[in-house]
Structure formats: C-alpha cells, structure tokens
C-alpha cells in the first residue's frame, strides 16, 4: 500500500503550500481544509481511525469554519490581501524555514528507523479505557481548558457596550 502514502504525501505538501502561498485568504482556507483532510488520511493509513475522524470533525468541521468566519469578519468579502508572501521583506522567513528544513532532514537521515510495523489492533474500547483510567487527570484538565477557552473566547469577542455620553 505504499502508493497510498505517496499520494497522501503529495496531496498534503501540495495543499499545504497552496494554503500559505495564495494571496486570497479564502483560497488559503480552502486549501487548508484539503490539507487537514490529507492529515486525516495519514492517520487512517496509520490505523488510527478514531484520530482521523476526530481530525476531520475538529479541524474541518470546527477550526476551518472558525477561520473562515474570522476572515469574513476582518477582511473585505473577497478576501484579497495586499501583501504577497513573495515580497522582499519575506525573504528571511523563507531562508529561515528552508534552513530548519535542511537541519531536520539531515538529522533524520542520520538515524534510520528500520522497524517493521506490526499492526497493533486497538479498538475504540481501548481508547476509551485509556482516556478514563490512565489519562483521566489530563482528560479532566483538557476539558477544563476547553471550557475556559470557550468562555474566554466569548468574553473576548463580545462587543463592548457603547459608552453613552
């Protein structure tokens, strides 16, 4: 099933590049959705189906929609941006990220992981048990964090009452 991985990899890299290179923010967001879907595909190919589905639900269903809403609220409706990511001032950004990429790839080359993949069959039940037993405290903390984030987001984004004079 090698080709699945390669197709997904090309898909992810392509859509990721599209997502950061385009000038139109809505196009970026649409490419980002494709990117998220590709990541979900990677999770499926790694037999983490639950995570893949969660990825689609959270990223495509929620975060992408949030980003689209944010674009709609802060930009002109067409979503065009004035500054291109290829302008002169961005050159150092490109150099820095390319350098990091080189470093990462170099270090990866040094340590080849030649490990055979024994498919470990896990079910939803295992995930549920892990979440409720071994990881109960992080789970609670995360739920608290999400609640706090929800309340915080609402409070921050709430329109301030106009002062009457």
């Amino acid at each position, binding site marked *: 099933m090698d080709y699945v991985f390669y197709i997904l990899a090309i898909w992810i890299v392509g859509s990721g590049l599209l997502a950061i290179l385009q000038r139109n923010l809505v196009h970026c967001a649409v490419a980002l959705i494709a990117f998220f879907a590709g990541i979900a595909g990677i999770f499926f190919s790694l037999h983490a189906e639950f995570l893949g589905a969660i990825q689609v639900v959270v990223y495509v269903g929620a975060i992408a929609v949030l980003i689209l809403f944010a674009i709609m609220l802060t930009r002109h409706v067409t979503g065009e941006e004035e500054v291109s990511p290829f302008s002169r001032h961005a050159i*150092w*950004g490109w*150099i*820095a*990220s390319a*350098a*990091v990429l*080189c*470093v990462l790839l170099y*270090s990866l080359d040094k340590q080849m992981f030649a490990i055979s993949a024994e498919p470990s069959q896990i079910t939803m039940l295992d995930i549920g048990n892990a979440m409720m*037993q*071994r990881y*109960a*405290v992080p789970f609670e903390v995360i739920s608290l964090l999400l609640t706090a984030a929800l309340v915080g987001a609402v409070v921050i984004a709430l329109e301030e009452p106009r002062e009457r004079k």
Partner: protein
Amino acid sequence: MPWIVENLWLIAFLPFLAAGISALMPRAQKKASSGIVIFAMALSLLLSLKAGGYLLKAGSSHETLHLVRNFDWLPYGDTVIRLGFLLDPLSAMMLFVVSFVSLLVFIFSLGYMDHDENFTRFFTFLSLFAGSMLALVIANSLLLLFMAWELVGLSSYLLIGFWYQKPSAAAAMKKAFITTRIGDLGFFIGLLWFHYASGTSLFYDQGQGALDPTKLSILGGSAALWISLLVFCGAVGKSGQFPLHVWLPDAMEGPTPVSALIHAATMVAAGVFLVGRMYPVFEINPTALEVVAFVGAFTALFAATIAVAQWDIKRILAYSTVSQLGYMMMGLGVGGYVSGLFHLFTHAFFKALLFLGSGSIIHACHHEQDIRKMGGLKDRMSRTFVCYMIGMFALSGVPLFAGFFSKDEILLDALHFHPANLPHFASRIPIVFGLIGAFLTAFYMMRQVKYVFFGSPRDHGAQHAHESGSPMTLPLIFLALMAVATGFLGWPGHSWFHHFMEPAAEAHPTNLYLMLGSIAIVLIALGVSAFVYSGEALRAGAVDPLEARFASLFRVLNNKYYIDEFYEKTFVLFTRTFSRIIVRFDRYILNGFFVWGSALIVYGLSLVNQLIDEAAINRGFDKGCRSVRTGSQWNRWIQNGLSQHYLKITSLAIVILFLLALFIGRT
C-alpha cells in the same frame, strides 16, 4: 457485602439530590421544594436507622466493627486515589443524630420560615448542609471527610448570612468562614502529613487502612503527635474551642433553625466527631490527648462564665454550646472516648430542643431576642415552656435527664485522669473546671428561664405572645422526649451506649460520691439562681442583681473578656499596621529615598559630567559614539517587537546551534 453498606452513599446522596432539585425550583414553589427536601431527609433517616439496626444485629465481632465500601476515585498514571464509605458504631450513632435532628429542624422551619420570601433557597441550603454533614459522617477517608468538611463550612457560611442584607449577618458569615479557615489550614496540613505517613487515604481497608493496627504501628510517636495536633486545629476551629470560639456566638445571626441544627447539634459537633474518628492516632502519644483535655476543660469553664452575663437569648445558648463542646473535648481528652461521644449524642437533642424552643419564643415575641424584654411567657406558651424546661433540666444536669448521665460520665472519666507525665495538680484541673462549669451551667440556665418565662411581661412583644403552630411545637415535643429518653441509654454501670460503641473496653466503676456531689452542685446552683432572679430583679427596667453586686466583673463577662476587641487590637491591627508600614516603606524609603535620592545624585553628577564632557571629551568621543550607534542599530534590528522576527531569529539560532553541535561532535 450487606445491602446497606453497599448503598450507604444513598444516605448522603438523597439530601444532595433534593438540594439540587430544590435549587432549580422557582421561588413560589414553597410546598414542592420543602416537601422534596423533607421527604429525602425522611428517607435518609430510615436508611440511617437501617444501618444502625444492621450494626446491632451483626453483633460485636471485630470484623463487623468497620464495614467499608471503597472505590477508585481518581486515577492518574498508575496511582489511584481511593475513597470509600464506612459504617461503624461511631458513624451509625452520628447518622442517627444528624438525620433525626435535621428532619425535626426541617419540619420546624416550615413554621418558622413561613413568611420568608426566600423560603426555597433556605431549604436548598439546609438540604445541602444535611447532605454534606451526612457525607462527612460516613466518609472512610480523611480526604473525603475534608471535602465534606469544607462543604459543611460553605453551607454554614451561606446559612449564617441567609439574611445577608443585614450588615451584622454579612459580617458574621465572613467571620465564621475566616475563623474556621484558620483551623482548616492546620487540618489540611495534618491531612497531607497523615497521607504521606501512612501511604493511603483510607481509614479502614481490610487491614490496610491508615487507622488499622498494622499501619498505626508504623506511625512514629512524634509524627502521631503532630498529626493529631494539626487535625485538632481543624476541630478547634469547627467546634468553637478557645481561642477560635469567637465565630460561634456571632453565627447566631442566622435564622434560629440554622442555629439549632448547625451551630448546636450537628456541625459544631463535627470537630468532636473528627477527634473521635482519629482517636487511634491521638492515643499513640499521650501528650496529644492531654492538649485536647486542657483545651476542652478551659473552654468549658471559660464559655460558661461568659454565658452568665449575656442578654441575648440565643447568645446565652451559643456560649453554652461552646462550653458543652468543651466538655466533650475534655471527655475525649481524659480518655473517655465513649463518654465524650455520649455527651455529643445527648447534647445534640437537648441543645436542638433549647434552640428550637428559643426560636419558638423569638417567633412569638416578634423577633425580639433580648431576655430583658421578655418575661411571663409561662402561661402564654405553656407547651413551649414545658419543653424548654425539660431541655433546661437536661442541660443543667438534673438527675434522670439526659445531660445528667452524660456529664456525669465525663466527670467520672476526668476523676480517673492520671497521666504519668503530668504532676498531680495538673491532672486535677479537668475535674475541677468541669465541676465549676456544671455549677455555672445550672446557674445561667435558671437565670435565663426566670427572665424569659417568669415574672410579668416587660415589653409589648412579650405581652402579645401566643403559642406557635404545630409544625413548630411538634418537633419540640419529639426532642423533649429524646432529651429524657437518651439518658437512660447510658445508665451508670449498665451503659447500653458504651456497649454499642466499644464492646471490648470496660467502663470505670460508678463513683457514688462524685455523683452525689455533682447533683448537689447542680441543685445548689439552681436554687441560688432561682433565689437571685426573683421578685424585684424581674421587674421592667431592673438592673441585673449580679451587675449590681459585681459591676466590673459583670462588664468584663458581658463583653466576653474583650476577646473580640483583643483580636481586633492585636491580630487585625497588627496586619493593618504592618501593611501600612509596608506602604510607607515603599513610598518613602524605597521610592523616596532610594529612587529620588539616587536620581538627584545622578542628576547632580550628570551636571558635573556635562561640564567635563562638553569641555574635554566631547570631540574625542564622537567617533566612538558613532560606532556604538551603528552597533545598536544592529541590536535594534534584533529587538524590534515583531514576533515573527523573533521566530525567524529563533529558527536561525537553532540551525546555527545544530551546526555548532555537529562541528564539536566531529572534532
């Protein structure tokens, strides 16, 4: 496992559930809300009775003494914190007391709070309190006990300040909360230490719990002493022992049913219960129990003296409660585990009776609480009068009433108090204080009764008083019956209560001289008091005979030894002054002297400098300055306030570090 142990949690859960449902109800649904609360409480009482009955039937074999139902509560990683519920004679006794008194107080509140617009809120809080108190009683873990302890404190806070629009009530609720918090801090440290020392949070767990003999034997003497003293801090705060007793009389700002339930019968006894629960740890080091005994004895006497000179009907009872709690602590401290708890048991009923009786009086007198403005209620409120007299006799320790038996047992145990590490003189303190306290108790109770019920009415409130309705008098009658009946459970020499609580241990043999002596003291006190407060003294506008005779002493007592003022002058003032000093220090020394001073010096120096500069160095330095400026241009580029820029530099730095590591690794 028997059904009742398996489902012990229901006893605490039902009031919680009722509180939750009642909290969601609209204000107008008075009947539904109180009905649900009372129904849940009745179910809890039934279950408590079933639990007690099971324990009685199971007999006294050692395995059945501590029936536990433990469960995993919070797993993190591979460690699991376990909690559990416990059924043993101690918890069974407390379950009965708490649920019985709560039920009666709830019914009483139906009448007392009838006209209050926040009726449902009141019942919600009451039910919340009852649930947490019951959870406290059945907790099989110091952690769970602490949680319930805090919930109990919270509901007490809410109920004291139930009429929070009154400034005094708002102040009292804060005072209660903060004062008990001081004790709770000690308790919490003790909890952590205990957990650390024993490695488990459970009390009993098939021989592996913290209070099981195997774990107790590991506990060192000094560790045991510190743990017990720290835990005792919590008990001191909650049970209003000296020096943290100040909140309890103020807590009388709450509605009277609350005073009866929380600040007389149940919650304040939680401290005594806590000491009883941790008794095996206290026993390890005798010093711990001695501290308990002395604190208790002192509180018993100290509070009784204050009660003699109070005017507020509820405050007299409040100080009496403090005093009686001191008795219980003293009983536990002198080694009378059973006698202390027996006094808790009987006291709960007759003190609830007295408070509810006073509630009935206050209700009848249009919320007048000053006993100088009452009088002559004997004929107007005959049912209340009879019940109140029974409660008063029980509290004073008149023979054949409940208080007599339990107080006598404490005194008996105090008589046998001969610890090896104390001089003989010191070991006599509890019994002497106890006897004086008994005298004072009888004295001030008679004084109160005389003021309230005898003579002629001294105010229009008392003139128009009439008997309260049956929701208020029925609980009084029930409690009066209990105030008589419970005493016989501890008949000297053949104490059923003793057998139930601690079948293995033998009680001290009855001392007839002591008994006769204490009876004599009580009767003399009653007689003296009745003689002093008669005739002229009960006339309107008359001065209290004691005040007339011992004016300065009376003033001191009336002002509670100026303890509140003392705290105000010392701790509060100290904190306030200290913070003021800090502010001054900040403003004048740090800001004024150092900052301004150094600024002036620098300014002066710079003036000098300017002269030198402009004259001599200016020209030569200009070039150097220019190069510095170029350098700082570069620095400015690094530090330009753009997060993207920082990230850029960070990633480049990572790359450079990596390359460096690579080079160093090569060579």
